[in-house]
């Protein structure tokens, strides 16, 4: 609105601000619709993240008021926390590198194979592969504890004994040598989750005329088809499922507790970042320090995600 002639013009900034509020008021319906989600979102995700950042620079035991200690928590984490450096970090990296990309590639391979089947059959195979990811913690522990049970009644021990691969029953879950491998196997088994379904969906969006065109352009086999046509056409879904895979991998940690029944795994052999946070938060009540660890975890996941966006970003004109 232009000021009436004769009236002094309001300062520009003020006019802008007024305009801004008017537009906000005009869009009030939008904000109203958004409100329920945003309220919950700020309460349980946004503010906690900021609070974690704040708490990470304090010493806080949950009772007394947090005491500001600067970056001491992070310094301690990097220099004094032997368990973190010696077990948590290598374990997390090993676990994440195998389970993350491994599970991701496996879900793509299986999604692609299922997509090659006639339509009527697809549902059964989808169900078979998706079912493990529906088994929650309890089902996981019941199944796998029975399979890896330490006496000769355990399924794995029984099979290996029968074929003469081992002399005596192994304590699979209590032995630091094996625990990590078992965790990786179990997580891979249950890793065909939402990301897998997203890839199945993505495969259906690929324009089939592109394959014809590709053949004319000299694509010889299916591998080339996948590399030059399928993957580029479903980049958006690939990215979404990468996001899901990374979140799933970094938050896995309860798996070791479910398998061994112990908060701290034998010899820290299955100790991941989330276990470290739980250890300091709910066993030792050093909440400031635990927050510092979770901030590090957040940073790591953010960086990995930036990398994935680089990898899968849809370029202009694609």
């Amino acid at each position: 609105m232009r000021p009436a002639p004769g009236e002094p013009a309001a300062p520009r900034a003020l006019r802008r601000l007024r305009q801004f509020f008017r537009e906000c008021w005009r869009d009030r319906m939008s904000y109203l619709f958004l409100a329920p989600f945003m309220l919950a979102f700020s309460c349980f995700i946004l503010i906690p993240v900021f609070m974690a950042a704040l708490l990470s620079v304090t010493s806080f035991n949950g009772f007394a008021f947090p005491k500001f200690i600067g970056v001491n928590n992070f310094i301690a984490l990097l220099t004094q926390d032997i368990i973190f450096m010696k077990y948590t970090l290598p374990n997390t990296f090993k676990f994440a590198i195998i389970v993350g990309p491994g599970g991701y590639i496996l879900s793509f391979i299986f999604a692609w194979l299922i997509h090659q089947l006639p339509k009527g059959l697809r549902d059964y195979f989808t169900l078979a592969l998706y079912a493990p990811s529906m088994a929650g913690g309890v089902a996981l522990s019941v199944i796998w504890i029975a399979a890896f049970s330490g006496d000769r009644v355990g399924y794995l021990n029984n099979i290996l004994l029968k074929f003469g691969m081992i002399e005596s029953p192994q304590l699979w879950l209590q032995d630091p040598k094996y625990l990590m491998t078992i965790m990786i196997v179990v997580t891979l088994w249950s890793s065909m989750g939402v990301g897998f379904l997203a890839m199945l969906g993505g495969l259906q969006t690929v324009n089939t005329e592109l394959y014809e065109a590709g053949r004319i352009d000299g694509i010889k086999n299916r591998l080339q088809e996948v590399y030059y046509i399928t993957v580029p056409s479903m980049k958006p879904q690939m990215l979404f499922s990468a996001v899901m895979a990374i979140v799933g991998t970094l938050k896995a940690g309860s798996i070791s507790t479910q398998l061994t029944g112990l908060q701290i795994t034998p010899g820290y052999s299955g100790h991941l970042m989330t276990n470290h946070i739980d250890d300091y938060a709910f066993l030792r009540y050093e909440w400031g320090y635990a927050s510092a660890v979770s901030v590090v975890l957040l940073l790591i996941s953010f960086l990995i995600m930036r990398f994935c966006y680089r990898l899968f970003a849809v370029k202009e004109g694609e």
Partner: protein
Amino acid sequence: MGNLASERIGTTVEALPYPKRLTGRLRRLRKQVSWFQVTLIVFLTGIGLFMLLPIIFLFNNAFKPLNELFLFPPTIWVKAPTMRNFERLFLHSAAGVVPFTRYLFNSVIVVALTLVSVILASTMAGYVLAKHRFHFKTLVMSLIMISLMFAPETVSIPRYIIVSGLGMTNTYFAHILPFIASPVAVFLMKQFIDQVPDALIEAAKLDGAGDMFIFTRIIIPLIAPAVATISIITFQAVYLDIEGSSLYTQKETMKTLAYYVSSLTANLQNSVAGQSIAAACALLMFIPNLVMFLLFQRKMIQTMLHSGVK
């Protein structure tokens, strides 16, 4: 689909000697499926069975009598199925301070309320984010994108402080509200509503329809697949969640089935008597998820067509 490649593979496979009856049957099948697909079906069936083996075991285990659970050599198939494990589960908890039904009731209430509120909140937010233009839209979208990237469990300490600060400990709110902040649900919903044609909404607006009308009469009927998907995802998360019960509630009467069951299966490694109850519990926790997925499988894939991040 892929005729060239499949035919090439087909010729190599055909050269192999097969029993006559099998080739006859396969030749009939050949009319519908290519050789490549036949090999694939065999391979995938193998993989599928391998993936399902533990699940099959889960089903059988729940109906095994106690002597079969500890049989040597261990078996997978149940010989004399019995409902005894489920009876024991109910009896075990009936003798406790809090009856089994109370946990079940809590779980049903929490799951139902959470589903309704998550669907409502995420549809509303998704509609606005997909079809409206307003000042903070890019900000909200980027916040959601960033929060997709980490598991909220990592900030469980501040969450606990907030829950207790809001005075929600020992109430159903502590179980329900944290789940409403589900960036995945809003994201999927937004992506799905994006593909509702703008022309439809424009036309309704020209006819004088308000936001409420557009939302309830146009958007809601069109987004059934996305609602189904979000229900499945939320259901899985809520029904299996134990964080709410273990961190936010101290009263035993306010805890959910998942927590109760996980407390029964804790230290399963060393307990002999608990095995039968645990087997029944595990099946109990798995079945509802399975049923949900079976009901909505197709819809879920349909939603995922639009799940891309651009």
